[in-house]
């Protein structure tokens, strides 16, 4: 007769099975972030050094005009990219929700860009937007001699080309999410509103869109995440140029860490990027956890 709790294999095995992943999380997520943060407080250059220099690297970072430009670009790109994607996605979702024939085919067409690598997207749009061979030349050849569309080589406008390519890639995805959200709305609420006399426009603006709040948040979070990480797209499309005009934090970090041998600043820039992501994520998670969910 056993009096103590028998801890058979079924007690240890589950823990054993997830332990590799636990190690992964501890080392590769938390451990690495801590290491990077630590390095950002040192004077590491080509190789990591462990001599602490306080906030020096951060000061250097924010005094670097290239970094400030990169952050600004991120803001511009982020706001436009997220904003346009959300609007386009929402409008397209609403349109697709109107009982369209061949809806499946259309959805497939809208969504396929998301299956492509950002490098591929950047490559294609690079040529499309190239004034000497792409759209500008094409439109001119149609007879509109004075058509100019040379944003991609214009330092002031180049960042907007990144927006164009990014929106092309991601808006279909946003549309798919919004469509799923629209479809998840209880029809009886809509019917009640229609009985109350609301027309289609009112139904959309007063009932459907407000009840899609969680979906909007999800889409926003994902788009923000894509925007902050954007590296591939810019590299392929403009290489960060012309000059440094389309520089973004991710490129700055890569170049300073792996090409210029300035690990300290590189680490600092990485930490700033992480903080930015957290600044968006944490309030979102907090509000998600606070509001009681259905069920």
């Amino acid at each position, binding site marked *: *007769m*056993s*009096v*103590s*709790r*028998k801890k*058979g294999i*079924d007690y240890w095995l589950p823990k054993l099975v997830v332990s590799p992943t636990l190690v992964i999380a501890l080392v590769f997520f938390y451990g690495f972030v801590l290491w990077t943060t630590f390095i950002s407080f040192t004077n590491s250059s080509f190789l990591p050094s462990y001599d602490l220099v306080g906030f020096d690297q951060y000061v250097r970072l924010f005094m670097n005009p290239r970094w400030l430009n990169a952050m600004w670009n991120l803001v511009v790109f982020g706001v436009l990219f997220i904003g346009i994607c959300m609007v386009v996605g929402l409008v397209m979702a609403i349109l697709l929700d109107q009982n369209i024939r061949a809806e499946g085919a259309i959805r497939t067409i809208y969504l396929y860009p998301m299956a492509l690598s950002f490098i591929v997207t950047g490559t294609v749009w690079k040529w499309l937007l190239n004034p000497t061979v792409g759209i500008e030349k094409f439109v001119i050849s149609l007879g509109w001699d004075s058509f100019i569309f040379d944003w991609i080589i214009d330092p002031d406008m180049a960042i907007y080309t990144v927006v164009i390519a990014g929106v092309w890639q991601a808006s279909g995805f946003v549309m798919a999410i919004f469509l799923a959200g629209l479809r998840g709305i209880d029809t009886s609420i809509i019917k009640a509103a229609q009985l109350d006399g609301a027309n289609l426009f009112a139904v959309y603006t007063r009932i459907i869109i407000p009840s899609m709040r969680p979906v909007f948040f999800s889409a926003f979070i994902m788009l923000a995440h894509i925007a902050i990480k954007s590296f591939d797209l810019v590299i392929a499309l403009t290489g960060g140029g012309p000059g440094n005009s389309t520089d973004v934090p991710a490129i700055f970090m890569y170049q300073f860490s792996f090409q210029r041998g300035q690990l300290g600043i590189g680490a600092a820039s990485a930490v700033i990027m992480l903080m930015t992501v957290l600044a968006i994520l944490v309030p979102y998670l907090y509000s998600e956890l606070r509001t009681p969910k259905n069920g």
Partner: protein
Amino acid sequence: MAELKIDNVYKSFGEEHILKGISLDVTDGEFIILVGPSGCGKSTLLNCIAGLEDVTTGDILLGDTNVTYEAPKDRDIAMVFQSYALYPNMNVRKNIAFGLEIRKMPKAEIAEEVARVAKLLQIEPLLDRKPSQLSGGQRQRVAMGRALARRPKIYLFDEPLSNLDAKLRVEMRTEMKKLHQRLGTTIVYVTHDQIEAMTLADRIAVMKGGIVQQFGTPQEVYDDPANMFVAGFMGSPSMNFLRCEVTKQEKDYAVQIESQGTIFQLPVDPKQADLSSYVGKTVVLGIRPEQITHVMPHLVAEQYITQVPVKIEVTEPTGADTLVLARINDQECECRVHPQEAGKVGESMELLFNMSKAVFFDEQTEARL
């Protein structure tokens, strides 16, 4: 086959106390039912017996083995779940054989067992089908078959009939009773349906709030409830509870009721309760609808039967009889009369109150007097 002993079992989930000191003895071959409202802890208790949950304190003994800390598979128990939990990717035959294969029974023996069980439950034609191809009743039988094939010491049933439609439920209830009579197995069965409990059980444990309120035979629980909860829970339509004042009538005691302005004294059978300390106070009179009937001449003169005229508020014909809702002591009272004797709403009719089975409860504690 063995006896089951649950010894002072407590079970908490953190700060939430689900089971608060459960002690039950089940003898070999008994059909025990745990019944109670949702949240009373009956399913948790069943899971503890099965070993799917650990008890916080207390012991569970199977036969003379303390299985409190044994894994489910070592307890020699079989369970039938509310959703049947048949393995969707296996056909019926494999579903039944699964547990036997795990126990490394030789293939020939497994085939024999499957055949035996299939014959017993009449599911032979279904053996090669998958669960998705079976009806609700068929799935239920396969689930039972899976349990029977294991020939365990105890069978546990967790609301197995709840997912069936009403008619099928009644049919399966009878089947289950027949099966138990035939096999003589020890069964612990959970349900929230008190009719199922009454018809199937050898003994019923009525639970509420993690405590066994009463543990007895169906008739005991019905006629002799331990408290107001048990009295009100068992029986459908449920027992009437009337608050009345206790009065002293010469040698006996009575409770006072008022109907349509007139006062009547209902005599209290001293075998049912001793109300001597409650004279002048209010007690709760528990009387079942079938004890309040239309006037049957041969009963009128019986000792504990009183004739009272009442005003009919609502009638509910059920076919076999008609339930009449009357107002007594300014409280609602359900009475059962013959359909042809029932009056119309608004009218007055004479009823006989049979006090020989009446029970009494303390107004505050709800305990049985």
